[in-house]
């Protein structure tokens, strides 16, 4: 097993009668940014907390580099985590918050200053936490995750509360960390952000795995990917005018999905047949449409 690999196997969590996570299995590999996507309430946070031994699974296991989190000899030196509902004492300075964790983990206190510099909070580090903006709190969370210079990073919605500049900074940081060979596992509901950031994605809904793999592969797997969508008031005439290589599937409202020929060929056929066109486009689904198609109807009442 490669160092820094996260392996989730049959992970399950029941809260009374609710199945928050249901038999979830996937692997997160080092050297890449892996996005963890799902609608609100789909079990992302519960899964991350089970990986980190904060929530006890009903069944199944999660290991990081082959060990359960609780069995890691020096957890902060191996795994850094930024989680929601993780905070600091309002009356304590950010720097003291980090120094307390250094003391607990056996890290030298100077690491607190080093990570504050890394996230650009050196000046604010001596101010009390209650004066921090949401963006500064997120930066402190990232500083906390980086204290032990970890091999594996797990982040739950890290972009929440960051301004566009902060989001760009975070994207650069996470990509750089993955390029250094670290494992970066990021949950998010911001699909457009994941498309820019992630190499692989794991998509869940209702606590179950829906899809996983490289972003390009996942987006290509959607229905109609790569097909030409054409809308016309005279669908039958156009279908007859297309070359025999083309296979045609009919959608609603005069839409045809054409495979086997490209968009210019469809346009040329329409011109020859004198058919009026209202739309002509090659389907290139983004992560968002994949996500919506895969999870539709699964985010219902829980």
């Amino acid at each position, binding site marked *: 097993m490669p160092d820094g690999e996260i392996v989730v196997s049959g992970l399950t969590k029941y809260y009374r009668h609710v199945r928050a996570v249901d038999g979830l299995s996937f692997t997160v590999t080092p050297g890449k940014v892996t996005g963890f996507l799902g609608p609100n309430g789909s079990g992302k946070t519960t899964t991350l907390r089970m990986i980190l031994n904060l929530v*006890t699974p009903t069944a199944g296991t999660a290991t990081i580099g082959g060990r359960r989190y609780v069995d890691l000899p020096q*957890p902060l030196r191996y795994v850094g985590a930024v989680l929601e509902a993780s905070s600091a004492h309002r009356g304590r300075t950010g720097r003291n918050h980090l120094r307390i964790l250094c003391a*607990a*983990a056996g890290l030298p206190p100077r690491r607190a200053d080093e990570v504050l510099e890394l996230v650009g909070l050196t000046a604010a580090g001596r101010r009390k936490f209650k004066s921090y903006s949401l963006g500064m709190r997120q930066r402190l969370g990232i500083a906390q995750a980086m204290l032990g210079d970890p091999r594996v990073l797990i982040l739950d919605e890290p972009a929440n509360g960051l301004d566009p500049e902060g989001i760009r900074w975070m994207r650069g940081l996470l990509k750089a960390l993955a390029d250094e060979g670290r494992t970066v596992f990021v949950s998010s509901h911001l699909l457009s952000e994941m498309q820019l950031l992630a190499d692989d994605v794991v998509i869940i809904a209702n606590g179950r795995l829906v899809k996983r793999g490289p972003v390009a592969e996942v987006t290509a797997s959607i229905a109609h990917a790569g097909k030409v969508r054409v809308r016309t008031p005279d669908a039958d005439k156009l279908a007859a005018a297309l070359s025999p290589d083309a296979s045609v599937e009919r959608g609603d409202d005069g839409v045809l999905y054409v495979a086997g020929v490209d968009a210019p060929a469809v346009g040329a056929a329409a011109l020859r047949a004198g058919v009026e066109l209202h739309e002509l486009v090659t389907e290139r689904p983004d992560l968002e449409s994949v996500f919506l198609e895969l999870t539709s109807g699964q985010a219902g009442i829980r």
Partner: protein
Amino acid sequence: MTTSTAVAGPVTAGHRRLIRSELLKIRTTNAWWWFALGALAWTLAALAFNMWFAHIALTDPEMLGGQGGPGMSSAAFHGSNVYTSGQFLGLMFVMLIGILMVTNEFHHQTATATFLATPRRTVVIASKLVTAVLVGMAFAVAIMAIALPAGALFFSAEGVGTLLDEWPVQRSILLNLLAFGVWSVFGVAIGTLITNQLFATLLAAGLYLIGTQLASLFFLLLSIWLDNEAVLEWQVIVPSIASQVMTSGGADIPGSPQWWVGALILLGYAVVAGTVGVLITRRRDIS
């Protein structure tokens, strides 16, 4: 390395790190400072009152109307009373610090960071218990650093000597130290049981301040109803009364058992409370 059975095991480097971390948590916030000021103010007030009381009892026992029996006129009783001045609210303050050591983690959502740094929760709670005992005893030492010299001067001036050479007085001073340690343990245990900070602190302070009187009243009524004075001895099962019995030798409670009965009951509660605290925290989901 640390193991889940580390509570009973020797103190490892990991434990020392965690105790340092817990002490840093207390030092980097303001709450302990307010509690220390409160304990200091209360100690000075209690010291003045206990000295006044001792002065009257030792010089003019008739003024007390012969109440309280022979114990009230013994110098040793007043020695214990004056030298442990400040205990009543001091114990409550160290209990509240113990409560805050746990409930702060939930109130300010730092439990996640704490358990990420140390996923073995038994070790975390054990370190909190040890740290609470250290802080509680530091409070006791600070309070007695005032009460001992002041009391020694007072009793010398009263012409009864310092009384510090009498075993019952020495015992009270040592047990005062123990009481502060035990009530800190109660605080941590209460915090693990009730993680809502406001509720835990109000309930514990309320029970400590009012519950003791209510329990005494209950046992008094019970003894009248059963027509049996021995029932009064049973009130030693109430922690705060057990604590009083232990440190004062029971002299100020009618029909009181021996001091060591109070000590054993109090230690029993501390062990049960600490164990329950560890077990609850091991099972809790942090989210």
